[in-house]
């Protein structure tokens, strides 16, 4: 296994574990950010430059900040006292079972064994992505645009609804 990949994967998974395990919400979110950056770097390693940078732009630049705001707005800036997990062992067991299932499937998949070890870097031009988006996928693009608009409006409405009723 490539050492760079090992480091990246280790950081990504480790940060994810930390994100899910830390008591302080802000630390969790920061760890999540690290994990997402690690994922973006993995995308880069896989040759998906565009996806990687979009990942950073959206997740680090927007989603992480959004979650931070939510944390602060719900007064989650301090480490909460008391339990942080509900019945952790059964949940962990289920999650472990799911992982075991997926890993088993990956290990046994005949399709994967047939794949090339390290195929040539496929061409990925942003222009091709743009052509695709405005060509074949123009309808999904519109739908996503609509969805984002709806989410924007919906987010505002939900977050301010109680103020309205006062």
């Amino acid at each position, binding site marked *: *296994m490539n050492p760079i990949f090992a480091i990246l*994967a280790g950081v*990504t*998974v480790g940060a*994810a*574990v930390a*994100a*899910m395990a830390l008591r302080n*919400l802000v630390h*969790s979110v920061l760890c*999540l950010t690290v*994990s*997402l950056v690690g*994922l973006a770097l*993995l995308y880069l390693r*896989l*040759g*998906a430059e*565009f*996806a990687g940078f979009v*990942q950073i732009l*959206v997740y680090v630049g927007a*989603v992480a900040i*959004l*979650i931070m*705001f*939510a944390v602060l707005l*719900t007064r*989650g800036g301090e480490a909460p006292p008391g339990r*942080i997990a*509900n*019945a952790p062992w059964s949940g*962990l067991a*289920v*999650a472990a079972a*799911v*992982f075991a299932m997926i*890993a088993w499937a*990956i290990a046994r998949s005949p399709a*994967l064994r047939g*794949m*090339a*070890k390290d*195929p040539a870097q*496929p061409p990925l031009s942003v222009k091709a*992505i743009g052509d*695709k*988006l405005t060509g074949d*996928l123009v309808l999904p693009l519109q739908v*996503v645009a609509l*969805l*984002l608009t709806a*989410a*924007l409006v*919906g*987010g*505002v409405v*939900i977050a301010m*609804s*109680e103020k309205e009723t006062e």
Partner: protein
Amino acid sequence: MTPYLIVSALLFSIGFAGVLTRRNAILVLVGVELMLNAANLNFVAFWRHGPNPAALDGVMFVVFAIAVAAAEAAVGLALVIAIHRHCRSGNVDEASGMKG
């Protein structure tokens, strides 16, 4: 290929574990984000190693998934804030007003 899939499975399971166990609603959402991203990693990996990378299907899927996930995060967090305002708590186990 397989290492990527294993990393993806790990991320998915970690996120799932968080969703299942964490009390705080925001962290549940964080877990969901992790699960989504694990799926995205799968898409990219399969795009790269798949039979037809020129079709860009995996990458397009990721781009769309990121957009949708952003919307999901926005709405989800708005809901968390609304629930927090309503219940004075951000813990998922206290917002069980729908129980039978």
